[in-house]
């Protein structure tokens, strides 16, 4: 910070400030032992997911090439045993990491985008004095409340069944049914932001609704949104596991939930118990890791929570 360049453009200045803020953020985050544990677990899982083609041949996913005995316990060649088709559970687990994380992250992205859009727009127009503004806010929040009240799993089951089960539909269904909580949180934060003087200044200078929302409200709800995103991933991965277990997944692209569903349907009790244990433990680890990181982020952003 001491050695500033001589010519300062506003852009360079902004970046210096952002870098400093990020460094401060990281210093705070690093102090949280549980958050760091979660981050390390996540790093390992993401590495496994990215390196899946290197770690395990994707041919191992195809039952046609499986020659091993079915539903057999761990051996040297198959460290986690085999499933009912004679495929290596380890191979399935590694590729499952890839698919489970893809589903979790994409569904979260959809959920967060809808949630942020609803939250920011409702919060912004909710603070406007005009009657139409209040009406917009009310209408948007009624929609969010509907999704908040209607039970998630039955709704997702009905949607996935009537649209037709596949990985894409699962992603869409989870995304469409899980955004309401985010919208509520973002709206509350947006309402708080709306009372700040810089928004009054922006309005006085003639900023339109879009400019106010995009340049002022959104950046200020962003940190909260980030923590919420991380926590949402934990929920979407659990939701994917449940839906796939119930038989709504894509059989050609294994996820952890689908492995559990297959283990349930094709007699895990009579053979390889690891086939059931491994994906379950993987789900618990990932969900816990996302939860720990999310709570650590929240604590850094809101020191009031830190003493919990």
């Amino acid at each position, binding site marked *: 910070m001491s050695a500033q360049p001589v010519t300062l453009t506003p852009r360079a200045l902004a970046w210096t400030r952002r870098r400093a803020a990020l460094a401060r953020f990281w210093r705070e985050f690093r102090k949280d032992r549980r958050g760091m544990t979660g981050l390390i677990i996540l790093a390992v899982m993401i590495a496994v997911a990215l390196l899946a083609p290197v770690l395990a041949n994707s041919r191992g996913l195809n039952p046609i090439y499986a020659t091993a005995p079915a539903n057999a316990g761990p051996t040297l060649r198959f460290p986690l045993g085999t499933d009912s088709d004679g495929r290596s559970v380890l191979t399935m687990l590694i590729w499952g990491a890839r698919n489970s994380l893809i589903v979790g992250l994409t569904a979260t992205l959809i959920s967060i985008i809808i949630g942020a859009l609803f939250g920011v727009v409702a919060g912004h127009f909710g603070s406007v004095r005009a009657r139409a503004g209040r009406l917009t806010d009310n209408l948007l929040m009624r929609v969010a409340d509907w999704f908040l009240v209607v039970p998630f799993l039955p709704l997702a089951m009905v949607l996935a069944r009537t649209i037709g089960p596949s990985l894409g539909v699962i992603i869409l269904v989870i995304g469409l049914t899980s955004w309401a909580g985010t919208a509520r949180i973002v709206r509350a934060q947006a309402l708080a932001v709306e009372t700040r003087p810089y928004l009054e200044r922006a309005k006085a200078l003639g900023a339109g609704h879009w400019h106010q929302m995009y340049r002022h409200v959104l950046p200020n709800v962003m940190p909260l949104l980030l923590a919420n995103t991380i926590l949402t991933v934990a929920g979407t991965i659990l939701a994917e596991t449940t839906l796939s277990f119930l038989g*709504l997944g894509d059989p050609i692209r294994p996820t952890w939930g689908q492995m559990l569903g297959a283990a349930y349907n094709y007699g895990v009790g009579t053979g390889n118990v690891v086939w059931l244990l491994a994906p379950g433990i993987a789900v618990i680890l990932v969900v816990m890791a996302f939860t720990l990181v999310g709570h650590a982020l929240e604590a850094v952003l809101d020191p009031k929570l830190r003493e919990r």
Partner: protein
Amino acid sequence: MADVMLEGARAAAEERSGAGAARSSGLARTLSVKVMSAAITLFVVLVGNFFLFRVLPADPAKNLTHNSALSAKQLAAINRTFGLGLPLPQQFWNYLVQTFHGNLGRSFVNQLPVSQLIGQALWPTVLLVGTSTVLSTVIGVWIGIRGGWNRGSTFDKTSTAFVNVLYAMPDFWLGMVLLIALAGKLALFPDGGMHSFTGSGSGLASLGDLLWHLALPCIVLTLVYLAEYSLVMRSSLIDELKADYLLTARAKGLRDDLVRRRHAVPNALLPSVTLIMLNLGFVISGAITTETVFSWPGLGRLSYVALNAPDYPTLEGTFLLFSAAVIVANLIGDLLLTVFDPRVRQA
């Protein structure tokens, strides 16, 4: 931080100016608004059901007949019988009338009326979900109070870690692990169902048999539900710890456990109690997967079987019932909170 306080102060000021004059009529109005909005929510579920199952499929008649090969004449006959050729508003009106008369159609699988199937499955689910909700509430709230009051103690640390693992655990996975460990090899518990096939005798023996079958699914649901209750109880107790009235209570010289029991816990209990009502949606997901794993003949298993058949009328009926149950439970929780806690009346 300052903004949050500002926000709170503004809301409080509005509350004082608005609510003071007409408190009782304000309460009645808030309540009626809540009832109305629950009714609208339920209506939207009905509309959604109608569209998802009758309008969205390209050809509802084919959907209705399981996509079997039918002649054009037969399809036309089905369209006439089920009124599928009628204008949409007319169809929707018929659908509403039938639903409110309790006619939910017939199952594709066994041709029984869906309302009868639901009637048979209702009691097992109420038994399972009711027992585990009571158990998880009592245990969860107890853990939350003990951990929150002695924050940072060994009990607090171990219970928080334990609860966090439970929170991340898929309920059906826990069910399968327990099933294989305790029912499979050790044969301590039955491997599913609600009664023994061999006939369970009468009276007390039959009750014992039922409880024996209930044990494992009930343990699973209790463990999964208690995670959230204890986390909420713990954090709401911690929120109360710094309150002035606790300082007063201590200054009066009350013993520590009296301060906890008489002052802190009653105030911290409110969020947890309402959460139990608001949480029924989450409870229902647990019931669907756990009943599936343990072949418990309840609504959850009914909807799982309907999902995979696929048996659209049954799936539709269970969805409607689940939604109605959750909406009503939410409404009750909301109303209770509004009556008991004046602070939320304006929120």
